[in-house]
């Protein structure tokens, strides 16, 4: 049957055509196309790899940042705590100091008051003694004429004494 017997001329033409097409395509199409495809695939693979790397780095950075932040927060809390303690300490110290100062001042004042009081009493005693002596002197100097006169005289003396 004609359908199943290959025609020699057609066979030769196809053979020649295939070989030429194969050589032309190999040189001008497949080589550059495959090369470029491989290049692009490598580019993409490289880009993905570097993106992954960057992502990992970013994650690492972020975790580092978080750690730093946590540390900073802790430090701040620590600082605040210390500051509060220091403040309390200072305040307490100041209070203590003020208290002791105040008590010292009070003690001093009392001492001074006592001393002055004693001095004043001594003065008063001296004054009273002196006045008594003066009065006694004057009474003794006066002619004690009568009781009335005596009393009146004492009273005038007494009135003339200005204690303050």
């Amino acid at each position, binding site marked *: 049957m*004609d*359908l*199943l*017997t*290959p*025609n*020699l*001329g*057609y*066979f*030769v*033409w*196809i*053979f020649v*055509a*295939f070989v030429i*097409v*194969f050589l*032309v*395509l*190999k040189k*001008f*199409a*497949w*080589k*550059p*196309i*495959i090369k*470029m*495809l491989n*290049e*692009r695939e490598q*580019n993409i693979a490289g880009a993905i790899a570097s993106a992954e790397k960057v992502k990992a780095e970013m994650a690492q950075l972020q975790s580092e940042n978080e750690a730093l932040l946590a540390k900073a927060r802790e430090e701040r809390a620590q600082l605040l705590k210390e500051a509060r303690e220091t403040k309390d300490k200072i305040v307490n110290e100041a209070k203590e100091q003020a208290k002791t100062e105040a008590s010292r001042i009070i003690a001093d004042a009392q001492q001074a008051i006592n001393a002055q009081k004693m001095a004043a009493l001594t003065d008063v005693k001296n004054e009273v003694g002196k006045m008594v002596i003066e009065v006694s002197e004057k009474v003794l100097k006066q002619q004690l004429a009568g009781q009335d006169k005596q009393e009146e005289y004492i009273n005038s003396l007494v009135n003339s004494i200005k204690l303050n």
Partner: protein
Amino acid sequence: MVAALSLFLVFTAQSVFAQHEEHAEGAATEEKFNPGEAILHHIADAHEWHFFSLKKSDGSEFHATIPLPVILYSPQRGLSTFMSSRFHHGQEAYNGYKVEHGKIVAVDAAGAPDESVKVYDFSMTKNVVQLFIALIVLVWLLTSMAKKYKTGQGVTSAPKGLQNAIEPVITFVRDDVAKPNLGPKYQKFLPYLLTIFFFILINAIFGMLPGAANVTGNIAFTAVLGVIAFIVIIFNTNGHYWQHIFWFPGVPLPVKILMIPVELMGVFTKPFALIVRLFANMTAGHIVILSFISLIFIFTEMSQVAGVAFTPVSIAFAVFIYLIEILVAFIQAYIFANLTAIFIGEAIGDHHYEEDIVAHH
């Protein structure tokens, strides 16, 4: 588009019918429409590109054809070239040659066939011309695509247009045909496999255009591809491959001897299977489409009404098969490339590689 296509199919089928009537006229008897002959005529090669024939009012025929160059070589008469129009559509002899049933034979002065003169026909037939057109288109498509890659488009930027259409096919052949079958040596055979794939695909697609020749469904076409596959396989065999053939491992001695002829035959049956598979698939598709169209004329011969009534059914089936044929074009290109890759893989494969394959499955 499908409607236009079916119209065209009817049209071409009618031209067969018309042509047949012409023969009937010559025989001066009312012959019936012979679908077998019409279909075989349509899938066979021809020396002219025949589209349709019209009967003029004065009874003469008008043939819409493109004449093609005829190149003949005969050891006795030497080389002769002329256009196929000289044959006047097979009705006349020219330069001592005549077309008989689609074949050019030598004739003597009286016009009777001369068996003593051997003729080698290297004509640019319908198939050859279409093959060249298809291949020029293919080369142009792929080289222009390659140029685009060289400018950087598709490498540093996203691929565009044609690249998007062809690139997946190339990567498919590379990743699903070459790599799994050929292993690490796939780079060497990739251009060959890609060429096979696109060679079959472009010719199958061109063969499906209305009025086009049946290039891939010709035994010579598939024979060339099979022979080339055979050559590539034989030239890339290694010791392991031949050891498998002459001393099949892991079987008792009598079986080893029995396996030698079987394995030797296998060397030749593999490419032969490639040849027959592609030929049968492509031819069968064309025959089925033409059969559905022929049904219209068979029914018309029974009665006009039946013919008209059956036309839509027939066209619907033809269109359906036509769409399947488009799918088959891709599948056959894939299968041919894949089987070639498997056969080459067997020839170049080393033992470890085979173990790997088995381990993976």
